[in-house]
C-alpha cells in the first residue's frame, strides 16, 4: 500500500508542484491519477519513485519511506512520460540491464511479449516509433515483476488495440500476483477502461480519490420520454438530479442514487420511453467534483 501524507514539493521560482497532498493507494488495483498538465502528476510519480525528495510530508510504501531506500525501490518500476533507453541499445540490451536490477525479472516472458507485440528485439530502439517504445517500456515494467508499476502517461497515445492488450496484461498480472499499477493521464478516456480507482489531481492536491465502481454505483444516467410532460416538475422533485439535458421530449438525467431505487421511481411514472445509460468517467468526475464547487470540465481533458 502506498500512503502519502501532507506531501509538498516546490520548484525554483516558487512553483508549488505538490501541495499538502494526501492519498492512499490500496494494493492490487489499477490506480489512475488524472489531472491537467501541471497538476503535479509527474512530480508525484517521481517522488513516489524516490527520484525527487519531498520538501515536507511523507511517502510510505508498504510502511517504508521510499526516498534513498533501495529495498523499497526494488519493488517499483517507474515508466516516465519520456522513457529512456541507452543510446544504440536494442531491446535485449535493455532487458539485460533491467535483469541486473530486478532479480525476479522474467526474461522468458519478456521475449514472449516482445514477440507478441511485434517488437523486433534485434532492432535498435532508436528506430522504434513512440508507441513501440511505450509498449517496450510497459513490457519491461511487467517483466520486472515489481509489486508497483508506475506508468506516467504511458497509455496516452496508444492505439485502442494496444491499450486493450495492455489492459488485459495488467488485469492478468493483478490476478496472478501481488501487483499495483499506478497510471497517470491528463485524458480521462485513456483510463476509464483500465482503472479501478481514480484520483483527481488539481494544483498539486488531490481533489478526489474514489473507487470507480463506488462512484458508478451511486450515479445513474437515464434517458426517458414522459407520457405527460406536465407531470415532469413534480416527478423531478423525487430525484437527486445532477445533470439534466433536454432535447425535444427526450430527457437525459444524471442522477445520484442506487440503480434499483432510481428504477423504481421511474417505474411509478408513465413513460413513453425509458433506458439506463452507462456513465463515462468524465461524467462521473463532473458530477463528483461539481459538488465540491469545481468546474471539472476545465480541469480535465475529455
Amino acid at each position: 500500500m502506498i500512503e502519502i501524507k501532507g506531501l509538498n514539493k516546490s520548484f525554483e521560482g516558487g512553483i508549488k508542484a505538490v501541495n499538502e497532498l494526501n492519498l492512499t493507494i490500496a494494493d492490487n488495483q489499477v490506480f489512475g491519477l488524472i489531472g491537467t498538465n501541471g497538476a503535479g502528476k509527474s512530480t508525484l510519480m517521481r517522488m513516489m519513485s524516490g527520484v525527487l525528495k519531498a520538501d515536507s510530508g511523507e511517502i510510505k510504501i508498504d510502511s517504508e519511506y521510499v526516498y534513498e531506500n533501495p529495498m523499497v525501490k526494488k519493488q517499483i518500476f517507474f515508466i516516465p512520460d519520456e522513457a529512456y533507453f541507452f543510446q544504440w541499445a536494442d531491446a535485449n540490451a535493455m532487458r539485460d540491464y533491467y535483469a541486473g536490477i530486478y532479480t525476479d525479472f522474467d526474461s522468458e516472458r519478456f521475449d514472449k511479449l516482445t514477440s507478441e507485440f511485434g517488437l523486433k528485439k534485434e532492432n535498435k530502439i532508436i528506430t522504434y516509433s513512440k508507441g513501440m517504445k511505450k509498449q517496450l517500456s510497459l513490457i519491461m515494467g511487467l517483466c520486472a515483476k515489481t509489486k508497483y508499476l508506475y506508468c506516467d502517461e504511458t497509455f496516452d497515445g496508444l492505439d485502442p488495440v494496444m491499450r486493450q492488450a495492455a489492459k488485459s496484461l495488467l488485469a492478468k498480472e493483478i490476478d496472478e500476483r501481488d501487483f499495483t499499477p499506478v497510471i497517470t493521464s491528463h485524458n480521462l478516456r485513456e483510463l476509464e477502461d483500465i482503472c479501478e480507482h481514480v484520483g483527481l489531481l488539481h494544483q498539486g492536491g488531490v481533489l478526489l480519490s474514489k473507487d470507480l465502481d463506488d462512484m458508478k454505483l451511486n450515479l445513474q444516467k437515464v434517458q426517458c420520454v414522459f407520457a405527460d410532460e406536465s407531470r415532469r416538475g413534480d416527478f423531478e422533485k423525487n430525484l437527486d438530479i445532477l445533470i439534466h439535458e433536454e432535447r425535444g421530449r427526450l430527457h437525459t438525467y444524471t442522477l445520484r442514487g442506487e440503480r434499483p431505487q432510481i428504477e423504481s421511481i421511474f417505474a411509478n411514472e408513465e413513460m413513453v420511453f425509458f433506458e439506463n445509460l452507462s456513465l463515462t468517467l468524465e461524467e462521473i468526475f463532473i458530477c463528483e467534483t461539481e459538488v465540491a464547487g469545481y468546474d471539472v470540465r476545465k480541469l480535465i481533458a475529455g
Partner: protein
Amino acid sequence: MMSENSLQAEKKNVKKYDSMSQRALFMRRKWVVLITIVSCLLIYPVSLVIGLISTINLNMFDAGVPVGIKLVNTFNLMLGNNIVGFMATAVLAVLSATQGFSYLFNRVTADFYESSPHTKKQRFRALFVNGLLIYYIPIIISFVLCFPAAALMGAMHPAMILQGIIQLLELMLLYSAVYSICIVGAMLSGNILTAMLFDLFLLLIEDVTFMAIDACGSNYFATWYNGSTADRTHFFSPLANYLKTHMPDPYFGSRPFTSQVMMAHIMKSWPDDLRLLVIFGIFAALGLLLYKKRPIECAGRGFVFIVTGYILKVIGAFYISLFTAIMLENITGGDVFVVFAGVLISSAIVCIMVQVLMIDGSAKKKLYHVAISALAVIAIVIVCRFDLIGFENYIPSENSIDSCALMNFNDSGFSYFEKDDYGAYEEQYDGRYIFNRMKLKNVADVIELAREGQRLKCENERMYKGFSRSYYDDYEEMDVSFSNSWNYVVLFNLKNGKKVYRMISIPVDVDATLMDRITSSDEFRSAILQCEDDFVNELKNSAGKNHTLMFYNGCRESKRIDGTLIGEFLDAYEKDIKTKYSYSDSRFNMPKGSVQFNEKDDNTDYIFDQSYFLNYPVFEDYDNTIAFLKQHDIYFDELIPLEMVDSIRVTETGDDGEEKETEYTSETEISELMPKLYSDYGTWDWQDPGYVDYERQADVTTKRDIYEDEYFKGETYTLYFLSEGSLKKSIDR
C-alpha cells in the same frame, strides 16, 4: 511467434549483471573508454616506438652522444616529461567527469538512473570509481607496454622502472585531482555548458587570480617586483602543481638519465604530488556532498545552486573587467573614460552571458551584479593608479625588519648556477640565490637607500609613461634619460617571517658613504659572488680538461690556461671580494679586465653540458687575483701598450651632428690620450650607465709587424672618452 526452442536459446543469452557494476558502467560509457584507451596508447607506447625509431635515425647526423644514452633519454622524455600526456590526461579527466555525471543534466536520464534501486552514495561511488578506472587501466597498460618496447629497442635503463612507476603515479594523481574538481563542477551545473564553465573556473581560478595580482602590480606599481612570485605555492590548481615539476627541460636530450636524476625528481616533486592527493580527496568529498544535496529537478537548468551561478557571474565579470581595464590602460595610455567604459561594458557582457546560461527563470537578472563587479574593478583601478594603499612608498618599520638584501636587476636579474634533476648546472636568472644568502643587518642604511630608490623608480616610471604616451607626438622634444640609476630589488625579511620586495632605482649620484656602508659589509660581500656553494665546489673539483681560463680587457685576450686552475683563481678572487669589494671601488674605478671561464666545445662528460661563460671583473686593487694572473702570465696592465700604438683618430660629434676628426700620431700625444680612453666591452656592478661618451670616439690603430703578439698587427680598436660629468672623471684627476 517465436518457437519454444528459440525462446530457450534467448533465455540463455540473458546477461544478468548489476547495473552499477563496473562492467555495466564500462559498457555504457564505451565512447569515453575508447577515447581514453586510444589516447593512452598513442601518447605512450606508440609515440615511444616512433620516438625511438626517430632517435636511431637521427643519430647518424649527430654521433656526439652515444645512441644508447639518447634512446634512454627519449624513453624518459616519453614517460616523464611528456607534455602531450599531461594535456591529454587533464582533458580526459574533464571528459570522464563530465560524461560520467552528465545524466544529471537531463530529466529523462536523471529519472532513469535515480529511480533505480541504489542509494545516492552507491551510485556516486560506482560512477566515481568507474571514471578513475577508465583512465587508470589504459594508462597502466600503456606504461607497461612501453617497457618491453624500450627494452627491445635498446632504450632500457634499470632506473627507468622506478621512474616509470613514479611518473605513472603522478599522472594518475593529476588525473584524479582534475577529475574530482570537474565532478564538483558537474555537481554545481545543470547542463554541460555550465559544467565546462565551472570546470574552467575551478581549475584556473587560482592561476587567474595570481595573474591578475601580477598584472595589476606590474602595470600600476613602479616598485612592484614580479620575481617575488617565482616560488608561489598553488594550493588547489592541479595543473600548476603538476607543471611546476614536469615542465620539459630544454636541455633534456643531451643529459643521461640516472637513478640520481630520478631521486632528485622525487625529492623535488613530492610536495606537489602530496598537494594533488589532498586536492583529490577534498574535491571528491565535496563532490559527494554536493551530489547528495543536489536536487534532481534541476536537470537542464544552468546552475544547480543559484548562489553559485551568481558567484561565478560576479567573479567572472570581475576578472574579465580587470584584465580589460589593464589592457585599455596600456592601449589608451590611461584614458579614464575609456577604461571605465570598458570595465562597465565587459562586466555587463559577462553578466548577461552567464545570466543567459542560468536558463532558469527563477534566477533573477540582478543588474546590480554588473555594478558590483564593475565597481570592484574601478575601485581597484583607482586604488592602484593613485596608490591609495601607499604601496610605492611603503617601507616596513626598522624594528620589524630582521635583515635585508639587495639584488642587481639591470636586465635579467642576478645570474647564478643551480643543479637540475639531471645533475647538471643551469644558469638561473632570478633572485633566489641572493635573497636566500644575503642577510644585511645595517637595516637603517638599507631603508634610507630604499626610500631614495623607490622615489626615483616612481619618477623614472612616470617619465617613461609620459614618454610612451607622447611618443608619436613629440618624441623629439622629450628629454628623458633612463641612465640615471641602477635598478635593484630590495628585500626586507621581516621578523614575522614575511618578505617585502620592492624594485628601486639607485641614483648614480647616491651618497657613496651610505653605499659603502652597505656594500662593504660581510653580509653583502659574501653573497654577491657565487663562491661558497656546491656549484663552486664542483667547479673547483671537476673542471677538467674541457675548461679554460683567460684574461680579457676589451682589447687584449690572454692565452688560455688550464680550467682546473679555476679553484685557485676563485680562492684568490673570493679573498679580494671579501676584503676589497665596495660601492666606491666599483663605482669610481675601472676594472683592469675580466677573468673569463669558458667551456671547450668537445664536452663529452655530461657534467657541464652547456657553454659556461663566467665573467669576473678584476679591479686594480684586487691583489690576490692579480698575483694569480701574473703568476700564470695572463695579466695586462694596459688596454694596449703605448709602444704598440701607431695612431689615434679622435672623432667628436658636435651638437649640430657634424663630426670633427683629429689624427694623433706623436708619442707624446698618444701617451697623453691613452690613459683617458676606455673600452665599453664589459659590465660590472655599480658601473655608471653612461660612463663613456659615445660622441667622443677614438680609433686606436696598432703598429704592423713589430711584435709577435697576434693581437696587435695593425688592428684598429674603438675606445671612448669618459662622459662629461661622469664621476669616473675622477680617475683622470
